[in-house]
């Protein structure tokens, strides 16, 4: 074979595509209920199922074809308006989609395909799908007044097929379509037409010139028959004469085909589609009638049948092309390759910093200039490399639509998911790791946050609860909020539970935020009932741990009776940051640049842990004291004002060393217990700098602030 292809690779593409299609199908299924005009979504669902079936067929994945075919038939009924896509059908379709997904997984693991008819789950789904197909009259659309067949029973169709010359070259074998057709009913008669096949001398052995006349007995509808040939529809002419048609339809058919009328008439008789007598009578009648009327009849035939076929073919052609058009704008890259690139960029940054340092030492102006140009470029390379890993969070959010749909149904609550900020981008590695914690938060919001419909009604809220997902960028972090409009957290009960568990000292005054934060403590759950979703007391502490492992943090805000919002704050990337280097004694620390607000001079005289920043109280931390750096403070110290989560505090340092790109190296496990440090970095000089964990320091500063506010509160009173 001249054009041998790597089947594994193609199969891989099939798997990736099938998953994407299933995702599309799921998204469309979830939005269809909310749409005023759901036709577009229904078409999208149908197309997805159809394409999966088609491409599975190309790979001989018969189990997937068999199952998807049934689902597709149901969807086709939906498209025709014969079946309404109600809530239970949406749920069934979602389950079917999952099942197809699992079959695709099996293909990926290169396991033997299970027959859905042999698998209990497949059987159950098929039975439920069949229920939608059973209760119908399959010929309602085509031959409503047909006297020939019993409604709903199998009936006799006549198919006229002429394949185009390129069918074989395009890798299609008309035989396989006929074989497939045979699975939908009984092929009563096939007449293979050799008329167009020339003698060997004139034959193009790879071109197709065969035609078939088929008498087909089936219970499926016309669209299903047409769909059998969908993959060759551009390359073949297909004429379908529905059951019970008048002989005139056959006459029209005869006229529209290239073979002579007598030859075709004979074929039709051989197929048993018309009797010889009927044909004779009809042909005679036509010959007698005026020629204009015959032309009129042909035109009518062309005017009614042809445009539909042409349009259908065009629409089918257009859709995949449009989809491909947008697809080709992106390139799939192995994540490993990208990680390697980013590691190299990291090394490049360190190397550039080293070179820059040497250049400075040599005091060679030209070298320094060249070096600074180089550093600029490296910075741009870094940004673009990191940008490659940035993905929109929308895809992650959309996955939760399904979760909300399923869980709400399970709990008998009516809940919709409001998503905003889907275009917010963040590092792919962060996206991958944030899925599970977010899932937990969403489930928690559904389960504990939103009350039962009765309770909501009693509180005068709309019956439909809302869970919201929101994302936005804020000073170098991405903020993801999971909110609900439920009953809010019960402060007293949490506090009581905290006391009971010994998490809170009795009699201690706590802010709301502190109380709410208790739910992130291990083994804390206030749910009265334990559901199978959440409430077992595991989870929220795991959520917090997972988020903190990503150098993020989580906060919770709640308003009794109005709802709860959990705010997750994560760094945009885990690899490289713009850092601000500060010196304390001989040590160098790095503050993430995005968090640095400003730098001010510090007199160093005061012993208090706060200062006055343009009339505002600014609590600060002396890094020298915090990390026990030896040596005396410099005569002129500085305060770096950092901002995080809307709050400001200061860091007292000896020297400001300026901005530098910082490649984050994780701390070894030995230092995991060190508080206030989130990582390390190698400086151009080869020294190690520690990266400050600003959110954690903020917590310390807030405690200082508490006392600062008390003292500062007295100041205006004294004025």
């Amino acid at each position, binding site marked *: *074979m001249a054009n041998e292809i790597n089947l594994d690779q193609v199969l891989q593409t099939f798997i990736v595509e099938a998953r994407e299609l299933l995702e599309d199908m799921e998204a469309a299924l979830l939005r269809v209920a909310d749409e005023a005009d759901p036709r577009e979504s229904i078409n999208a669902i149908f197309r997805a199922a159809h394409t999966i079936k088609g491409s599975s067929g190309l790979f001989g994945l018969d189990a997937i074809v068999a199952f998807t075919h049934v689902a597709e038939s149901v969807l086709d009924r939906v498209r025709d308006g014969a079946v309404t896509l109600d809530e239970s059908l949406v749920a069934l379709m979602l389950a079917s989609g999952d099942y197809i997904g699992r079959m695709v997984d099996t293909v990926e693991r290169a396991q033997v395909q299970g027959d859905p008819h042999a698998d209990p789950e497949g059987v159950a789904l098929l039975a439920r799908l069949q229920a939608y197909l059973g209760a119908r009259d399959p010929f309602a659309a085509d031959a409503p007044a047909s006297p020939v067949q019993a409604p709903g029973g199998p009936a006799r169709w006549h198919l006229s097929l002429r*394949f185009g010359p390129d*069918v*074989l*070259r395009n890798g299609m*074998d*008309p*035989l396989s379509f*006929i*074989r497939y057709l*045979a699975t939908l009913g009984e*092929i009563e*008669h*096939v*007449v*293979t037409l*050799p008329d167009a*096949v*020339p*003698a*060997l*001398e004139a*034959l193009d*052995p*790879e071109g*197709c*010139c*065969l035609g*078939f006349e088929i008498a087909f007995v089936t219970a499926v509808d016309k669209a299903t028959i047409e769909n059998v040939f969908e993959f060759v529809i551009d390359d073949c002419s297909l004429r379908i004469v529905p059951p019970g048609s008048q002989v005139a339809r056959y006459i029209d058919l005869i006229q529209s085909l290239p073979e002579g009328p007598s030859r075709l008439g004979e074929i039709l008789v051989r197929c048993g589609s018309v009797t010889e007598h009927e044909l004779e009578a009809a042909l005679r009648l036509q010959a007698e009638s005026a020629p204009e009327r015959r032309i009129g009849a042909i035109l009518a035939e062309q005017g009614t049948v042809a445009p539909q076929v042409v349009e259908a073919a065009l629409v089918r052609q257009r859709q995949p092309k449009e989809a491909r058009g947008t697809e080709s704008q992106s390139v799939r890259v192995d994540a490993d390759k990208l990680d390697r690139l980013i590691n190299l960029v990291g090394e490049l940054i360190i190397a550039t910093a080293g070179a820059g340092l040497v250049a400075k030492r040599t005091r060679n102006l030209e070298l320094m200039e060249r070096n600074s140009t180089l550093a600029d470029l490296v910075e741009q390379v870094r940004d673009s490399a990191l940008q490659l890993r940035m993905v929109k969070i929308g895809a992650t959010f959309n996955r939760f639509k399904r979760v909300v749909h399923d869980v709400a149904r399970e709990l008998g609550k009516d809940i919709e998911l409001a998503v905003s900020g889907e275009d917010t981008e963040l590092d792919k590695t962060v996206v991958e790791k944030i899925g599970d914690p977010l899932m937990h938060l969403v489930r928690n919001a559904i389960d504990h946050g939103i009350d039962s419909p009765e309770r909501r009604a009693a509180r005068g809220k709309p019956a439909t609860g809302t869970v919201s997902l929101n994302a936005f960028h804020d000073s170098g972090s991405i903020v993801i909020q999971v909110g609900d409009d439920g009953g809010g957290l019960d402060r007293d009960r949490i506090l009581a539970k905290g006391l009971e568990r010994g998490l809170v000292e009795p009699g201690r005054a706590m802010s709301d935020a502190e109380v709410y934060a208790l739910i992130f403590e291990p083994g804390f759950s206030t749910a009265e009932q334990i559901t199978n979703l959440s409430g077992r007391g595991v989870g929220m502490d795991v959520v917090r741990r997972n988020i903190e492992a990503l150098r993020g943090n989580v906060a919770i805000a709640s308003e009794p009776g109005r709802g709860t919002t959990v705010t997750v704050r994560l760094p945009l990337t885990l690899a490289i940051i713009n850092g601000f280097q500060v010196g304390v004694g001989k040590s160098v620390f790095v503050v993430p640049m995005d968090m640095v607000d400003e730098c001010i001079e510090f007199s160093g005289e005061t012993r208090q842990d706060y200062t006055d920043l343009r009339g505002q109280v600014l609590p600060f931390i002396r890094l020298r004291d915090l990390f026990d750096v030896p040596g005396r403070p410099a005569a002129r110290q500085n305060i770096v004002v950092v901002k995080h989560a809307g709050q400001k505090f200061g860091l007292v340092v000896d020297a400001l060393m300026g901005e530098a790109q910082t490649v984050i190296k994780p701390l070894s496990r030995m230092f995991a217990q060190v508080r206030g440090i989130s990582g390390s970095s190698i400086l151009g000089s080869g020294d190690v700098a520690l990266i400050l964990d600003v959110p954690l320091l903020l917590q310390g500063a807030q405690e200082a602030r508490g006392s600062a506010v008390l003292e500062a509160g007295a100041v205006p009173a004294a004025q």
Partner: protein
Amino acid sequence: MTSSTFRIDGELTIYRAAELAAALKAALAAVADGGALQVDLSEVTEVDCAGVQLLLAARRSAVESGRSLCLASRSAAVDEVFSLLQLSGHFGDAVAAAH
């Protein structure tokens, strides 16, 4: 009247259509006028439409040149396709037409 046999082994599909067409042409040319070519399909493992078409074309060539072509024996794979497409008549006719 002479008769010779042409045997096709393996695939009778699009992949070998061009090669087999040339071979069949040569085999037919070697048959004397009024002679018959027996095509032995007992060793055919796979047939597709290109294969079917090739046989139909060969039959037409034979008939047009006053020779005949018949299928000597058929493998299971050929039988399956012939019964699906209800082709048996074509080649039976061919024998009849030639005589």
